[in-house]
């Protein structure tokens, strides 16, 4: 919402400075977004062309001498080269000295030499001063324009423009008058009486209004003015409209725009001679089209409201008038409409059709119903003043009048909700100044809400009114009462795990990425997603269309982006949400990571002590287990199963399980087809850990750790090498060895895996080191012999392996 200072002062008698007004506006909730104090136009002075001669070197240029008054060039004439065809001796216009910034051409002038002749300034066109698009010649002022004085002041262009960022709850402040009312209530001046007297009319309005859709149109006022003379509106009106960014059209249209901004009352004018029969307010028919004033055709639906005449639908009610009946320079009889429209319907219609107008802006927020008729009177008054004519009597249809909402207002609510100690009478005075009508004087006062404040529904809204006018800055901060105790743990288990997983993975040399929750459809499908309920109806870009089923595609793409920038060894992780469905429960918490190139935990790239090898499945497995460990998963109870989801290399991937059902994670190198589909290249490995699938730890009554029993006897290590079938998993072999004696064997570690002719084709050798911890006595050679036999037998039974000879 834009307005000028002088316009505001039409409604507000005040001595306040521009700065005071601007500060106050912001502090009462009408946030000032921009102030244009018109400083840019200050340097331009009125100057007279003394002489004009043809440029010696150019046909279209003239060399002028200009008198710009005593303050320019010590009052001596200034030489200026000018290309305007209307430049002539005696012309009075707007002059800019070197050093002046000319907004219309975005140039700061300097002394120039044009075809060998020096030019010490510029005589400006309207376009150069951004006053209009006019650029056929320089500004040509009347002969009595005072040479040497500021042009802006002479042309009334020094009126500061204030722009307010209006919140959607305040339709009353979508008018200069409403803003003045708020400022007056805040003590910044006196509101000028805005009462509009009736303009008597003669005779009935011949065009009747039939409201067939009363649910969409709670009121409609219409009047005919015969014998008007339309044409350009007067300068003051045009200037006000231009100042706030409106384009003057003709007097009749300009009047409707003026009243829209001045009083927040949108109007519409019809050329009465183009209207056939009565006006009918009805729902549009399916498929009905209207050619609107912007010369575009709109296809309407029965959800939308139109104003039709005998020739069919004409205007889109409350949004935009129709081209067919629009007024123009030839209009002599004008119908002026001032109507009320159902706000939500206007909002929906405007949104569906994509039409943004000042009328829609106000109607969808709610215009003052009680100003429907006064608004029409005001418009009539202006039409008579500017265009002449004879008005008929106003025809009003459908309007039931305004019954004020009464809010029971416990005055103490101000203190309860804000902490402000405002005397009751002060609160009520503030409300009265804003147009509310308090009744009574007890602890609870009935307050009638004025017709222009549809946003005020309850007592909290009245508190807000008192607070903002009295001054938010007067509320002194008060500490929140302490609970009187040390705060306990404030994070949920899932939050703690998320945090720990992030720190653990970063400690492993990975960098935390935050990637988009939405990914391309093809990527989503590749990773098991792409369900219709996870597809955005209005994605911001085609490749951000589907909620991700996995963090991996985003991370792989990110790793590849880095590689494309020359950083081929990258390790990235993310701990965030994935989406299996559109319910809250279907949002998972996953820790995932990828490593590319040689970005291994223990170092990357070439090094004098040995180059890092390419990343592989075991890097991913180590990351996954580290993340699980950090999340508090029972690491010793996890089982690793060969193979994983289809996006991994089938022979170089694994699944981490807890018990037969729960899958806690997957890891592996990626399937070449996955990388191809993602436009990525390897070596690339990755993992996912399902943080929310890890069982909640059992609540324990104390934090005591289990008792530690240390054996006094020496630990002994024994090595075994087994030849097994190539398909036998090391995990099965170590499990079999460990099971030989669960009490004595405290660890089994694979220290060598070998395939070759010496162990037979199709076979491999797995060498293990078994840690044996005697607990009751030192073991004898016979004890070790027996244990070794049990180990060998158990391995043979479980895996078919034989001791390598």
């Amino acid at each position: 919402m834009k307005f000028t200072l002088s316009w505001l002062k039409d409604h507000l008698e005040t001595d306040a400075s521009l700065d005071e007004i601007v500060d106050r506006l912001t502090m009462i909730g009408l946030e000032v977004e921009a102030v244009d104090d018109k400083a840019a136009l200050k340097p331009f002075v009125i100057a007279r062309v003394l002489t004009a001669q043809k440029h010696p070197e150019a046909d279209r240029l003239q060399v002028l001498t200009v008198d710009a008054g005593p303050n320019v060039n010590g009052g001596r004439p200034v030489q200026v080269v000018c290309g305007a065809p209307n430049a002539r001796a005696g012309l009075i216009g707007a002059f800019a000295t070197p050093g002046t910034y000319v907004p219309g051409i975005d140039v700061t002038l300097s002394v120039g030499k044009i075809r060998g002749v020096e030019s010490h300034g510029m005589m400006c066109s309207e376009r150069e001063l951004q006053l209009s698009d006019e650029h056929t010649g320089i500004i040509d002022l009347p002969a009595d324009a005072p040479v040497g004085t500021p042009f802006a002041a002479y042309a009334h262009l020094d009126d500061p423009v204030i722009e307010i960022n209006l919140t959607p709850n305040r339709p009353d402040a979508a008018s200069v008058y409403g803003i003045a009312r708020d400022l007056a209530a805040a003590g910044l001046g006196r509101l000028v009486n805005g009462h509009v007297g009736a303009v008597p009319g003669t005779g009935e309005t011949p065009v009747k209004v039939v409201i067939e859709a009363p649910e969409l149109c709670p009121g409609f006022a219409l009047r005919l003015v015969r014998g008007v003379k339309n044409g350009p509106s007067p300068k003051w009106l045009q200037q006000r409209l231009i100042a706030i960014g409106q384009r003057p059209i003709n007097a009749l249209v300009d009047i409707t725009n003026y009243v829209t901004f001045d009083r927040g009352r949108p109007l519409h004018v019809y050329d009465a001679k183009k209207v056939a029969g009565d006006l009918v307010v009805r729902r549009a028919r399916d498929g009905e089209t209207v050619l609107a004033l912007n010369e575009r055709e709109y296809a309407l639906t029965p959800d939308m409201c139109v104003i039709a005449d005998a020739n069919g639908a004409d205007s889109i009610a409350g949004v935009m008038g129709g081209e067919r009946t629009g007024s123009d320079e030839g209009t002599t009889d004008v119908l002026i409409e001032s109507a009320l429209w159902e706000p939500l319907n206007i909002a929906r219609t405007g949104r569906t059709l994509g039409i943004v107008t000042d009328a829609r802006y106000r109607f969808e927020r709610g215009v003052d119903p009680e100003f429907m008729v006064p608004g029409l009177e005001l418009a009539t008054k202006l039409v008579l003043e500017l265009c002449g004519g004879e008005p008929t009597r106003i025809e009003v249809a459908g309007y039931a009048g305004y019954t004020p909402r009464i809010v029971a207002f416990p005055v103490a609510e101000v203190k309860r909700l804000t902490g402000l100690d405002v005397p009751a009478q002060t609160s009520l005075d503030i409300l009265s100044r804003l147009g509310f009508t308090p009744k009574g004087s007890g602890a609870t006062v009935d307050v009638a809400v004025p017709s222009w404040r549809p946003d005020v529904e309850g007592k909290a809204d009245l508190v807000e009114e008192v607070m903002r006018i009295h001054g938010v800055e007067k509320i002194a901060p008060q500490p929140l009462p302490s609970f009187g105790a040390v705060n306990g743990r404030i994070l949920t288990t899932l939050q703690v795990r998320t945090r720990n997983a992030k720190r653990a993975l970063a400690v492993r040399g990975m960098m935390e990425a935050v990637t988009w929750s939405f990914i391309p459809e093809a990527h989503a499908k590749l990773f098991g997603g792409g369900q219709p309920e996870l597809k955005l109806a209005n994605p911001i870009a085609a490749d951000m269309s589907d909620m991700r089923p996995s963090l991996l595609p985003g991370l792989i793409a990110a790793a590849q982006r880095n590689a494309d920038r020359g950083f081929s060894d990258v390790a990235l992780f993310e701990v965030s949400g994935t989406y299996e469905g559109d319910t809250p429960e279907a949002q998972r918490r996953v820790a995932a990571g990828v490593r590319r190139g040689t970005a291994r935990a223990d170092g990357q790239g070439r090094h004098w002590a040995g180059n890092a090898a390419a990343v592989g499945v075991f890097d991913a497995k180590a990351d996954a287990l580290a993340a699980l460990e950090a999340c508090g998963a029972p690491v010793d109870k996890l089982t690793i199963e060969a193979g994983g989801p289809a996006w991994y290399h089938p022979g170089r991937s694994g699944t981490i399980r807890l018990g037969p059902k729960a899958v806690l994670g997957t890891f592996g190198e990626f399937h070449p087809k996955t990388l191809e589909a993602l436009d990525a290249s390897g070596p690339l490995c990755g993992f996912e850990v399902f943080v929310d699938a890890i069982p909640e730890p059992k609540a324990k009554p104390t934090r005591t750790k289990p008792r530690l029993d240390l054996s006094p006897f020496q630990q002994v290590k024994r090595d075994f090498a087994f030849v097994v079938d190539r398909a036998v998993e090391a995990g099965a072999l170590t499990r079999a060895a460990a099971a030989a004696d669960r009490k004595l064997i405290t660890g089994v570690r694979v220290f060598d895996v070998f395939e070759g002719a010496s162990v037979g084709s199709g076979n491999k050798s797995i060498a293990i080191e078994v840690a044996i911890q005697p607990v009751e006595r030192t073991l004898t050679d016979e004890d070790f012999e027996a244990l070794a036999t049990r180990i060998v037998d158990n391995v043979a039974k479980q895996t078919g392996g034989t001791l390598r000879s």
Partner: protein
Amino acid sequence: MSELDTLEKTLMAEIASAGDEAAIEAVRVSALGKKGSISERLKTLGAMSPEERQTAGPAINGLKNRVTEALTARRAELRDVAIQARLAAERLDVTLPVRQAPAERGRIHPISQVTDEIAAIFGDLGFSIAEGPDIETDHYNFTALNFPEGHPAREMHDTFFFNPKGDGLPPRLLRTHTSPVQIRTMEAQKPPIRIVIPGKTYRQDSDATHSPMFHQLEGLVIDRTANVANMKWVLSEFCKAFFEVPNVNMRFRPSFFPFTGPGLEVDIQCDRSRPGEVRFGEGSDWMEILGCGMVHPNVLRFGGLDPDEYQGFAWGMGIDRIAMLKYGMPDLRAFFDADVRWLSHYGFRPLDLPTLFGGLSS
């Protein structure tokens, strides 16, 4: 010269010339071994008369002791020489670079770090951390937050919608703010409520300061007395603690959010005269930093609370935005690009844990 003197001279010369352990041992055996020259002479003592023994005994034993000492000393000398030689041979170029520890290389994203900083501050004020889903219903994101259906305020949100499912319900959407968790919290627990809610939020918007995905921090306090004065205190304490400055000047000005009444926006005084840097507590600029207000009575009702019994306040601010202000990242879009150069520069070391006792940032 006696025969013993001659022997001593010979042995001492042999010891001195022994070049290694083996040569020393050979000398030792030749002198002190079973059949060694000194051992042989010691054996002769038994056959001597007491008088002879009185002079020969100390002479031979003295020789034995001196040779033994000489052997030990020479051994030590040789070991030192050997160690010196080994050490010289083992010399390395210590200026060669070592491998960087993974913990030095790893980084925590600024969003995670700042979220931890926020948790540290609000934990101290008695708040808990709540969360909610990204995919929301129209009810939680709008209706229950007092956005009437079709109200223009909904349009301020540039919502991402999912396709309608044909169940007659409004389509699901990506939450446009973390405020739906206000309702979910009220449904799940009774006052007093003090929670903050960090999380992802989504709007159809993209430029240097807007991203279609961003992070918000919601705060909610509900009890029987919480008012605007308390809210001002909480928010100014937070800003001081978060930006790690002794003072902040904040300007609360009335504004509008459908789910608050009264609603306010908060500007923070700052100095932006240095490029790329914002200083708080000084300067003449006002920068908008958050929106807040008393929880609207309708929202309390939707959350199952009686607005005449309970009251409270809420606020929302951009986590990415306050991270940018504190740490000086110029462009929000880079937060989501995973460029390792950016992460390495703006990210945090994994063991930089924000705490109040040790300072939020180091």
